[in-house]
């Protein structure tokens, strides 16, 4: 793994690296099918007996816990543990709580502010296992929210602070042990899991030792030479090794488009020069996506729309500022001149890891070539998003951002990344501080549609995505293809590459 998880405590972590493990350790009331492709985005009951029963016009969700559930430490699971889990994720706080819990669940804001001792919108009955959740307003993908590892049930009484080296016990096929922060951890099979026999969630076959090393080249070589078994899907294989891997390990390597990720640069709409629409259009018009694709070892599919292809609402029409490719440098220069922002200083924020830093180095040079005065700031991967998420003090102008879907619904992209209500003082994900009344209203309106009924509002999401591309609120530079790369020892044909969490550890098996 090239980048460490933010934390292995589900109450804090909101990274692909953490969730890749935690969804198998902290099963939610709902979860996702253990399947490849779009089938893997299918919601299934997790610790609940069925998918939630939705009533009161989409404002009440009712579920019942399965019988006989126990945590990995042997303690029985109760319905009230769920309420405690939600409260803990607000208190720590979990990075997604400001988008998916506090404004959504009735009484969560009062609890968050310290005005209530518990969340009034959650009622539980330990005797029957019944859990009723009241929302402030209908929120279509709330059954997806229940699948977040952060809402995977943990025992009542777990300290209300993150425990990165001894995370709480959960209910899932695996438990995490031997944590050495930023270096290694182990996902070992949970011996209590098999007896619970939950349909659709298999037990693991092997224990998995995870080593964290920023040197992705040596990580890839280790898998190529069979001294490690898996290359982390969220890392990029350096181009210098790609052809070697393709020729020497063709039977155990492929690049997979999971269809739910967007790579973009955010443009701060409240700060000069990108408060000016022409300046933003200039960035989009001249961006050389072919160059960026080469920097990403050719694994980037050039694009212009914010919603990726497999997410409902992805537009099929032409890009407003030309077909993504080499970019129109002359047009970009003219737009910068026209905007009156030429010579404006711009700080480009970047992660360290490859190819993200290289992308931003190119982007910095590109901004200079079209008339801005850009410099680059590189931050350690582990602190990058939390640092630029300090929107109150830092005001980052522009920089790298990406999003892998939390769940297959466009509101996951818009509600977190571009909705004005999502601008938070800390852990902000709306890095561009986009606060457009039209977007806000559409997100509010369309977000109420359940994931299962998205087709009814697909055209409206599409129109919204076209609007965002036209306003150049973000400069999308592609959709990433991810490496599915394992050693010779592994039964490659049996592996599951899940569209939301990537590697499914339960599918790992030796030949």
């Amino acid at each position, binding site marked *: 793994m090239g980048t460490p998880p933010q934390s292995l405590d589900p109450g804090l972590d909101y990274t692909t690296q953490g969730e890749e493990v935690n969804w198998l350790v902290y099963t939610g009331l709902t979860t996702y099918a253990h399947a490849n492709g779009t089938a893997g985005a299918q919601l299934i009951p997790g610790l609940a007996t069925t998918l939630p029963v939705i009533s009161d016009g989409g404002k009440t969700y009712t579920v019942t816990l399965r019988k006989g559930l126990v945590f990995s430490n042997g303690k029985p699971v109760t319905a009230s543990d769920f309420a405690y889990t939600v409260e803990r994720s607000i208190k720590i706080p979990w990075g997604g709580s400001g988008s998916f819990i506090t404004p959504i669940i009735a009484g969560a804001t009062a609890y968050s502010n310290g005005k209530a001792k518990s969340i009034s919108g959650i009622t539980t009955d330990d005797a029957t296992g019944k859990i009723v959740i009241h929302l402030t307003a209908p929120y279509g993908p709330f059954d997806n929210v229940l699948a977040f590892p952060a809402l995977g049930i943990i025992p009542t009484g777990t300290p209300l602070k993150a425990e990165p080296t001894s995370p709480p016990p959960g209910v899932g096929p695996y438990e995490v042990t031997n944590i050495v922060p930023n270096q290694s951890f182990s996902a070992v099979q949970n011996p209590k899991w098999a007896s619970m026999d939950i349909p659709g969630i298999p037990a693991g076959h092997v224990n998995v030792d995870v080593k964290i090393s920023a*040197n*992705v*080249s040596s990580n890839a*070589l280790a898998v190529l030479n069979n001294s490690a078994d898996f290359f982390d899907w969220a890392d990029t294989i*350096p*181009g*210098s*090794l*790609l*052809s*070697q891997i393709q020729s020497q390990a063709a039977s155990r390597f492929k690049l997979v488009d999971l269809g739910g990720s967007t790579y973009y640069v955010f443009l701060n709409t409240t700060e000069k020069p990108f408060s000016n629409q022409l300046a933003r259009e200039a960035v989009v018009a001249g961006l*050389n996506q*072919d*160059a960026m*694709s*080469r*920097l*990403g*070892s*050719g694994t980037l599919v050039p694009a212009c729309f914010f919603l990726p292809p497999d997410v409902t609402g992805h537009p099929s029409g032409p890009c407003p500022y030309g077909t993504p490719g*080499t970019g129109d440098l002359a047009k970009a220069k003219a737009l910068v001149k026209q905007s009156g922002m030429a010579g404006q200083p711009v*700080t480009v924020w*970047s992660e*360290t890891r*490859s*190819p993200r*830093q*290289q992308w931003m*180095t*190119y982007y*910095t*040079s*590109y901004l*200079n070539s079209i008339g801005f005065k850009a*410099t*680059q*700031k*590189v*931050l*350690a991967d582990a602190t990058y998003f939390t*640092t630029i998420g300090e929107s109150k003090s830092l005001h980052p102008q522009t920089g790298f951002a990406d999003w892998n879907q939390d769940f297959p619904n466009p509101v996951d992209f818009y509600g977190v990344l571009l909705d004005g209500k999502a601008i938070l003082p800390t852990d902000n994900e709306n890095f561009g501080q986009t606060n457009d009344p039209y977007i806000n209203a559409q997100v509010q309106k369309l977000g109420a549609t359940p994931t299962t009924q998205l087709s009814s509002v697909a055209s409206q999401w599409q129109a919204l995505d076209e609007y965002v591309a036209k306003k150049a609120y973000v400069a999308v530079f592609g959709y990433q293809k991810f490496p599915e790369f394992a050693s010779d020892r592994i039964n490659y044909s049996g592996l599951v590459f899940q569209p939301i969490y990537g590697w499914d550890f339960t599918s790992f098996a030796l030949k």
Partner: protein
Amino acid sequence: MATISGPASGGTEFSEGIDAGFSGDGQELPPGIGPWSLAWRRLRRNKVALFFGGVFLLVVVLCLLGPVYSHDIAHIGPDTENITGTIKVGGKTEDIVSLIGIPIGPTWTSHYLLGADLEGRDVAVRLLYGGRNSLEIGVVATLITMLFGTLAGLLAGYFRGITDGIISRILDVIWAYPAVLLGITLGTVLAIRGIGPLHGTTLMVPAIVIGFVYIPYVARPIRAQVLTLREREFIDAARQQGLGNFQIMWSEMLPNLASTIIVFVPLILANAILLEAALTFLGAGVQPPNASWGTMITEGIDNIPAAFHNVLVPGIMLVITVLSVNIFGDGLRDALDPRAKVRIGR
């Protein structure tokens, strides 16, 4: 040990510095030869030190000529990217960076002489500009270290008592942290916020950080030397003549510390260049797209299997430069004081 007494006013005594009257090879010296001439005579005899001094000078000149090479020969700037561009090599058109991100190797022509990096930039041009930046940081850091190290050592050693206590404890705190660790911490914080009016991405930020972490390495030996000097007769004589403390420090102490300070300069310079590369490699030094040998190594590390030249070329330059400064510095030390044992590092 033989000493040479200087003029009555502002006298210079080389008892702790240049060892006059002793040639270093057992030969008696002609009468009337000055200490600096003596040092130069010793240095001239050290052919290895002179050779490496010349090598270092050559590196400096080459780096200073970077803009000329960039403008008149390579026709490309150090930060000019050309990822999707092509170049004709041996009549064949080749991508500067391939579709899967592999940069072209050395062409041995004026364009991309030493190949390209992942961003399609000319490695030879960046090598020279990177050298300028690495040397600039090294020189500024050395100046900061020498200025504040000398000042701290002088004040602490001369005044002793509470002044010495405060300065020495501050130096102890800095000394307690390994230089690289302290550099990473300061470099990371300052890269985000900058220092006062200095933007976090300027070269001055790593220069100040590196200059700061090495202050105790100079201040402590200087302090020890001042503690000895202040008890000498010529200092008493200066006091008797009515010279104030700061006059004594300026006109009596500093000239006697000159040889030690000079010996420290190349040693600190070599360490500063190395620390810059290390901090940059760890993400806490020079910020891209600025070129430095450290950034070039960092940027090339992921491409070692297919583009080894991206790391090899700046690595060789770094080794040559640091080695030449160190060997010349050793020669300088031998020339100024063949019995001194000045070392940097712990």
